């Protein structure tokens, strides 16, 4: 079957190579979108996880209660450090820039807090939200700030990226199907006599169809391999030039697609090729 498929590929080599190039370009776009998504995800993981929580204390809380609460919070696995900040310290901190109005404001305006520093590797946004909800129920606590706004914005960015990648994927899917389908249809048209002879001598439907399916899968698969290879080269080139500055700027070092995703692209390309070929055969062989 492979031999017959290769024979078919050789028959219209120029057209087939053009198809491989088109499929490769489409899958390259998809791979690039996935690569961007992968690195955005790493950024979200780096920056999106809450690292600081402020626990605002209720008025009239005694120092003993504060100490008990601080020790209890320090015992949580997600908390690296818990520091008590009194009202006076808060006012002093805010007026550190030399703002006289703040410095002269009544100390009651600045609620005492316990500032929690979290362990970055041990916390997730959901976990922190759960801890915050429990802490809020403690009578000595008036409010808990988890600074989720920034996290939510980053997550929104990632969700937008995912949606964009989804649209790119759909476009690529349709493009690959159309390219392979049209290529196989041209191949069918050029080999009508061959198909007629095969039917005449008693070839089964599967015997006639399989080489065309293999041909489609090979077009898609080779296109995908080329796409992943070019993407890897482009990534390596960019990384060698910008890795240090990107790492400093973004806080994460760029990574290439996981090998599973790369393999999925190649297998998916071959599958799409076979699917496009099947679509062409469905119409082509009936006529």
């Amino acid at each position, binding site marked *: 079957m492979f031999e017959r498929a290769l024979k078919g590929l050789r028959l219209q080599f120029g057209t087939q190579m053009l198809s491989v190039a088109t499929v490769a370009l489409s899958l390259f776009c998809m791979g690039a979108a996935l690569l961007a998504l992968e690195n955005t995800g790493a950024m979200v993981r780096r920056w999106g996880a809450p690292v600081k929580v402020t626990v605002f204390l209720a008025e009239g809380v005694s120092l003993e209660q504060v100490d008990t609460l601080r020790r209890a919070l320090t015992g949580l696995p997600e908390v690296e450090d818990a520091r008590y900040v009194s009202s006076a310290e808060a006012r002093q901190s805010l007026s550190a820039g030399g703002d006289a109005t703040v410095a002269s404001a009544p100390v009651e305006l600045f609620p005492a807090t316990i500032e929690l520093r979290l362990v970055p590797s041990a916390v997730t946004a959901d976990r922190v939200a759960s801890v915050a909800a429990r802490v809020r129920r403690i009578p000595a606590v008036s409010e808990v700030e988890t600074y989720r706004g920034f996290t939510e914005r980053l997550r929104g960015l990632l969700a937008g990226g995912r949606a964009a990648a989804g649209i790119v994927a759909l476009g690529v899917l349709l493009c690959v199907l159309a390219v392979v389908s049209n290529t196989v249809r041209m191949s069918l048209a050029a080999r009508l*006599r061959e198909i007629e002879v095969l039917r005449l001598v008693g070839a089964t439907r599967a015997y006639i169809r399989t080489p065309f399916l293999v041909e489609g899968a090979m077009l898609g698969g080779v296109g995908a391999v080329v796409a992943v290879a070019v993407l890897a080269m482009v990534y390596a080139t960019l990384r060698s030039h910008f890795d240090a500055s990107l790492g400093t700027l973004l806080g994460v070092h760029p990574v290439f697609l996981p090998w599973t995703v790369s393999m999925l692209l190649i297998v998916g390309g071959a599958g799409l090729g076979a699917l496009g070929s099947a679509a062409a055969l469905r119409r082509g062989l009936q006529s």
Partner: protein
Amino acid sequence: MGRSRASQEFRPHFRPEGHFDRTAAHKPILVLENVLKVFRADAPVLRGVDLTIERGEFVFVTGPSGAGKSTLLKLIYRAESVDDGRILFCGRDIARLTEDSIPHLRRNIGVVFQDFRLVPYWTVYENVAVALEVMGLQPRVVRSRVALALERVGLDGRGDERVSVLSGGEQQRVTIARAIVTEPAIVLADEPTGNLDPVLALDILGLFEEINEAGTTVIFATHDRTLLEVSPRRLVVIDDGRCIEARKGLEGLGDALEHRALN
């Protein structure tokens, strides 16, 4: 040229699983019963055709252009289906074969056309071998049987040549080699000499007669009167959609030939 008894025994492997009917060898190879084929409702091509062909026969089918010779052959190798009646091939009604069984019917039939129907970018060998490859035979077996078939048609040692560079007569020989390489029960020839000059036509007819002498049933559709005159074989004339059985030999052509405008 001699074939073993086993290879002469007809094996109608119509079904994909290789159903083998042992009684088939004792039945007429082909029986057409009241066959009707209509392309235009007001002018049936074949109407009530009855015809029986025994194993090992050589039968000419003749008639004017458009009489239905090709249609008759197409019904036999199931390129077309009957609208009514039955066609029994070794006792099995091929009109009722499923789509999946048709390829298995065709493996028992060799077909030769006027326009050769060869794949121009394939070699002689590839054009002949394809008939065996679809059956899934081992390459070693394919090679030896193709060599034998090419030798029978006088093309031994020409396997590597592209068919597109061969003459018309040589291309027809390749087609015949493809038709006989599977050792089919029957060979259908649809105007096989239509594109050849008279000398080559007689040459090709001789080849079909040799094939027939080796035990294969041959149905030879032609409107070439010369061939009908030089070969005293059974003759069937398709006249007004019906088969008229003429006697064997030139004296048996009857009035049908006299009054029909054969090209």
